[in-house]
């Protein structure tokens, strides 16, 4: 059970990464990047590293997505 779930999570990280670089809508791409960070944190917990998982959680869940959104808004507003 443990190994199977870990493989599923790693596959989901891969899928989220591929989506993050290939989606056209930048908003969805940023959300996929945040999702990759989420699955990575769950993988860290399965491997027994709560401190690393907590660091990944605190940065990747809110702040990373937020900075990307600000950057997208700034660059798209400059182009309009």
């Amino acid at each position, binding site marked *: 059970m443990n190994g199977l779930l870990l493989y599923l999570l790693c596959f989901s990280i891969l899928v989220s990464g591929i989506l993050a670089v290939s989606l056209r809508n930048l*908003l969805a791409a940023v959300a996929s990047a945040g999702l990759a960070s989420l699955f990575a944190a769950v993988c860290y917990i399965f491997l027994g590293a709560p*401190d690393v998982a*907590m660091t990944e959680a605190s940065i990747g869940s809110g702040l990373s997505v*937020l900075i990307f959104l600000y950057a*997208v808004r700034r660059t798209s507003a400059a182009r309009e």
Partner: protein
Amino acid sequence: MIELVGGVLILLGAAFHFSAGLGMFRMPDVYTRMQAATKASTLGNTLVLAGIAFFHPGWSLKLIVIVYFVFMTNPVSSHALARAAHAIRNSMGRTPVVDALRDARQDRQRVMWRILVAIVVASFGLIFATVAISHVEQQSLRPLAESYVRLVPEALRAPNVVTGILLTYRAFDTLGEVAVLFMVAAGVGLVLTSSERGNDDTPGPGRRAVTQSSEIVRTGAQVLGPLTAIFAAYIIMNGHLSAGGGFQGGAVIASGIVLMLLASPSYQLDLKFLSVAESAAGVLFVVSGIAGLLFAGGFLDNRILPLGQFGAFFSAGAIPLLSVLLGVKVGCELSVILDRFRP
């Protein structure tokens, strides 16, 4: 008997999660999908955590706090998202797609480029796969790791080995990371000057249309802001006892401040206070390091404060103090950076 009740609750919660996924997949419209996902997943989460509480009664307080946070945040965020979906459908007639890629129908050259990229990525994947498959997990720790695992509870009296290493044995590297973060903040401050933003009364072409957020979001943020601050203090102060520490707590502080910024857009950060606090925390970090040099074994030694009893709240010497300083510095820095980024 109690275990049976707990098991049934866990199974019921998992079934609700499955139905949330099914609803997300099969519902026809974005609003119905959001409704299915939010309601069912929140309820499933509550049931599973209630079931776990039957197995471990000592964990109930933490589980109740998790349930409370999810209950407060999930509906509010879903409400805000639904409002946004409704707003963009009404205003534009189709959802605006920020199309940053060029037109992919363009030429065969693009297809060739993609094939080349795929080959490179596949070869990297093959190299990593060979390394990963031939990896043999070690049966015992290496000598250095073994000595750290032995020394941190004995010499430093800190139950959390990772925080003990980060804030005493490798505290110099932590100081280097703090310096890097400071350089990032200074760089962002140079590149993104806030004079581009102007005040609220200078209108850009649709850029400064700052709408007021809905009452639900504002109330939710008012409730969650202080809770997030308390939670950040818990993570920082608990760094030497269980998982946590300065960086994580600082990031949570910054998230709490940014939450207040997002929920009420007219909220202005007191940048002067934040930069003073950040600099003071950084200076105090170095001062305690020099105090370690003067009064104890070396730079950033933690024995300048009494070591105390193993597992007590005020123990492990200067590690709680360093955690607090680190948390304050990282939190202030991240919120200043995020404030400068705001369009």
